[in-house]
């Protein structure tokens, strides 16, 4: 029987379908719930140094083929999150701590906290405003990204995953910077810059005006990023963006992903999304003669 087990960096996972950051992952209860629903690993909501309320509503727009969200990074702050991480230890799968900051120092501080809390790895959300610049994202600047990864690398011994933004033509340079700085994996992609407008109300729907597009609408974009990344970097790639069935997951893996994450699919399909992807993927692998997931990684390049 085909096996879904994978090793991503140094993390051994029972299956390659992880929960993406920002979706049902702010509390220990929800992390454990998702883990029990069949995910191979769960990533926490991105946590910052201080509690943040996020933006007023609307923070989400539902589309036929995805969502646009501008939650505004609400989170209880790294101190209060200690309790959630403590309770999340009973999770049957690894809990990866996602963090965001505006400087290398802030990232490394948060990473070492996540290590203290028992996280299995840290995921750096690089899609937040670049403090030095114009509100541009850190993740479009290879030097800034390199500095963040280096600092985190030296401050903690956990595997370091860097989550990349697709909103740049420099994605490959950024990924190479992650690799050179000692990052253990890249996670691609975060949401795509987007907006929804109400013709009757005559204004953007999200209170923040702009937001990030996720779900099936961005799957072809994420797939392209992962495919291109696979040709450029040698560290593992974790694919995210519009995965909601086994076929999506297999496509990402064939493009070069060692594992995938599911965000919007939790809302669009339900918590059964993890189990149904795994079941479908295993059936596909048996039909097509793949014994392990790693045999599928990157085969679309051959």
């Amino acid at each position, binding site marked *: 029987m085909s096996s879904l087990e994978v090793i991503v960096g140094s993390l051994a996972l029972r299956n390659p379908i992880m929960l993406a950051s920002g979706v*049902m992952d702010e509390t220990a*209860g*929800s992390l454990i719930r998702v883990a029990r629903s069949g995910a191979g690993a769960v990533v926490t909501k991105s946590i910052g140094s201080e509690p943040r309320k996020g933006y007023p*509503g*609307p923070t989400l*727009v*539902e589309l036929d083929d995805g969502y646009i969200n501008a939650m505004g990074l609400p989170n209880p702050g790294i101190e*209060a999150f200690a309790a959630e991480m403590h309770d999340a230890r009973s999770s049957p799968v690894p809990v990866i701590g996602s963090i965001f900051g505006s400087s290398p120092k802030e990232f490394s501080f948060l990473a070492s906290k996540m290590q203290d809390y028992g996280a299995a790895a840290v995921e750096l959300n690089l899609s937040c405003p670049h403090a030095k610049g114009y509100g541009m994202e850190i993740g479009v600047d290879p030097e800034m990204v390199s500095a963040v990864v280096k600092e985190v690398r030296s401050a903690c011994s956990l595997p370091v995953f860097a989550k990349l933004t697709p909103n740049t033509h420099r994605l490959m340079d950024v990924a190479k910077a992650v690799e050179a700085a000692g990052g253990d994996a890249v996670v691609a992609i975060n949401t795509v810059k987007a907006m929804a407008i109400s013709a*009757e109300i005559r204004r953007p729907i999200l209170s923040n005006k702009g937001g990030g597009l996720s779900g099936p609408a961005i799957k072809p974009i994420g797939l392209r990023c992962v495919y291109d990344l696979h040709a450029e970097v040698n560290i593992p790639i974790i694919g995210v963006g519009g995965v909601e069935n086994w076929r999506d997951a297999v496509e990402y893996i064939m493009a070069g992903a060692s594992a995938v994450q599911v965000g919007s699919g939790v809302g669009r399909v339900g918590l059964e999304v993890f189990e149904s992807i795994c079941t479908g993927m295993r059936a596909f692998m048996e039909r097509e003669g793949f014994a392990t997931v790693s045999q599928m990684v990157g085969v679309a390049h051959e």
Partner: protein
Amino acid sequence: MSKLRIVTITSVTKEAAGVTTLRFHDETEARPGQFYMIWMPNVDDIPMSISYNTVEKGITVKEVGDATRALCKLKVQDRIGVRGPFGNGFKIPKGKVLIAGGGTGMASLLPAAEGIGDPGRVDVLIGAKTASELLLLERARRSSNEVHISTDDGSMGKKGTVVEMVQKHLESKRYDIVLGCGPERMLSSLLKVCDKASVECQLSLERYMKCGVGLCGSCVIDGVRVCTEGPVFSSAELRKMKEFGSSKRDECGCAVKL
């Protein structure tokens, strides 16, 4: 999937001090106990139970902060956005139903009473702090032959809480289900009272909601999403929830005592 629609307010009714019902046309089918996310442009997007469940839908809003205040100021012809209906709603079994509402809790319970459509099958108990805050009494009387009132200060009906009234009713009469909505402290006493009398209940909870569609996780109670798997929970579900009646999450996701 339930996308944003822009609707026009067709009537504004003041129910009590600080409580207003807004009606608008929306043909979507809803079940009693479901809710909308209401977009008040330039202010916020908040959950509101469906208080009138005909094509001319209604919400009954209590002013407690910016968004509810702005909603209560709306006039006929103004526009708001609605998403939904969301959530599971009440599942009403055959037999005799006892409805127990505190405050605006009645807003989500009345469509259940009206949905049953048999005033002999439903008894309604309404609680309020004081007479002037009592809500939707006349509407309740149209869908139930037996409506009783309690106020904390005794200014109308029985003096005491609605839970005390429920307890009396459960002692004297057989009910197949109790439906409840109101402040969570009230609901947690209600569950205890029902459990003691061995009567099933379904209680509608409130949690901080942002997305309304089961995605963001801001509304979870013990890992369960109130927006999609609730807001109505059965006795069995409620008994398992450690956070029920004890704590909730604020906008940041921090746990706060109730």
